[in-house]
């Protein structure tokens, strides 16, 4: 039994390891990413500081809270970009026929994509998120959460948020197998993800009607909920439950879509 679990994990860890190695070998210009993120953060910081010159509190956020918010949102986003690539990858692999080499493996195409996100995500966590955290603390005054529990729950919530982003991307990918070009849909989704996750501005700042839309969508689980837990706002139990529900829904639905897709597949190329 232990052996079985061992083998199960070993395979998946290896898939993640290879995607880590692949992005490592690809040589991204890390410095550019760090510099551009720094500049954007600086602008954001200046903007909000200016806004809060005439208000001490807005929509439940004081200056310290809003600054922490934008800093952490930026940190979370750096890893969330990874799962957003998956639908585009899948689309390309179907178009070129490359998917054929992956469909014959003893690990499902679904899982190959799932664990790919973790390998690549960890890479970006190490080379972008960690340096950015240090920079945020030194230059922008990022503060720690109020209690240790808050911190632990934040980490848990952020992880769940990542899994939700992966699940969402897999749901989208599940619709591709009919060989229509859905790349436009994916780009729109990336934008929705950016907007409704609270990355742009906190959801509390949305007009009421837009906020009620955002509350129904899973995107808030990726950025907004983890940050609210970090800041100690709101009903933590409720928010973690929402995340759990979304994880279950998204993983089930995406799994079903993939199984269905296998049956109706048309693979390009002779």
């Amino acid at each position: 039994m232990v052996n079985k679990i061992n083998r199960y994990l070993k395979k998946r860890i290896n898939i993640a390891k290879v995607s880590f190695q692949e992005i490592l070998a690809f040589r991204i210009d890390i410095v550019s990413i760090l510099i551009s993120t720094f500049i954007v953060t600086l602008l954001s910081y200046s903007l909000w500081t200016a806004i809060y010159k005439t208000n001490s509190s807005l929509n439940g956020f004081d200056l310290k809270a809003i600054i922490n918010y934008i800093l952490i949102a930026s940190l979370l986003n750096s890893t969330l970009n990874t799962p957003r690539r998956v639908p585009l990858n899948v689309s390309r692999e179907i178009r070129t026929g490359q998917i054929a080499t992956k469909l014959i493996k003893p690990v499902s195409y679904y899982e190959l994509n799932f664990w790919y996100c973790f390998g690549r995500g960890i890479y970006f966590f190490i080379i972008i998120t960690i340096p950015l955290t240090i920079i945020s603390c030194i230059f922008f005054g990022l503060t720690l959460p109020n209690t240790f529990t808050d911190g632990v729950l934040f980490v848990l919530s952020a992880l769940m948020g990542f899994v939700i982003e992966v699940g969402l991307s897999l749901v989208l990918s599940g619709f591709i197998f009919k060989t229509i070009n859905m790349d436009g849909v994916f780009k729109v989704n990336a934008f929705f993800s950016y907007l409704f996750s609270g990355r742009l501005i906190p959801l509390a700042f949305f007009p009421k009607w837009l906020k009620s839309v955002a509350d129904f969508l899973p995107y808030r689980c990726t950025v907004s909920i983890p940050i609210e837990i970090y800041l100690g706002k709101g009903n933590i139990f409720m928010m973690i439950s929402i995340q759990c529900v979304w994880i279950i829904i998204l993983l089930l639905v995406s799994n079903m879509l993939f199984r269905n897709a296998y049956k109706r597949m048309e693979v390009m190329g002779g």
Partner: protein
Amino acid sequence: MIEVKNLTKSYNVYDRREGLRGSIKDLFNPRYKTIEALKDVSFNVNAGEILGYIGTNGAGKSTTIKLLSGILTPTSGEVKINGLVPSKERRRNAYNISVVFGQRTQLSWDLAVHESYELIKNIYDVPQDKFNEKLSWINKMIDFNPLMHSPVRKLSLGQRTLCDIVASFIHSPKVIFLDEPTIGLDIFVKEQVHTLMKKANQEFGTTFVITTHDMNDIEKLCNRIILINKGELIFNGSKNDINELYGSECMVSFESEDIFLHNYVQSVIPNNVKWKIDSHKLELNFNPNEVNIKSLIEKVIGSFNSITDINVEKTSLEYLIKKIYEIKK
């Protein structure tokens, strides 16, 4: 090992209309047509056989491979590999098979070859000692070590294909499918590919199914041949069967300084010999059981004064296969 019964695969594709008007019409009222890629194909492959699956472009070869490997689901009919239905029991079937696609690699583009092999080893649960054994076995036959440490993107097509074929051996599958593996390879690499496959077949009893239209592959490797044309199976047997059923033929060609004249040739050549003129070249085809080669050659040399070259060939597999296609039309 492989059982195929009444396998049929059809697709619905867009039937696109021509021109700008047509494209607009297509947007509002798309039309579909059904393409029958495979029609009612049945055959068996026994363990340890090397099957050559031959067909012209678009005949349905790749579709068959995809159906056999479980990538596609049949429209009707049955496929079983070692008792498993590929499209239904993917995971279990995956351990039994390997597929090498001629123009696509399963290896990671930016990583060294051995990293991809490590991943394969892990995904297929291959024990480390078996893995090492396999690789040293391969090294005995081809000088493989220099390739192992190179990133895949730096390899030439031939080297990449070799690496892909080696990759397909790692988990010791019972059946290996190769979809046009030797396209674009030079003769030396082709030989290495052939050696690998023949040795694997002899030592491990691996069954091979190779789609190809390269006669060299077929002559060197395959003991059984299936011909596919427009989705239908038109021949299933051994190379010897082809010779026996479609008649072994002999071909003798003559080159002359003068042009061969139609009427004169007709008067010289016996009726049971087929002939063809291409200005200075005369080609004769006949059944060596019916016609004596020696006397035929002597007759021709005697009748035509300026023969400069003679070429005798037992009819090639290629010629016989063309003949089968023609007969079956």
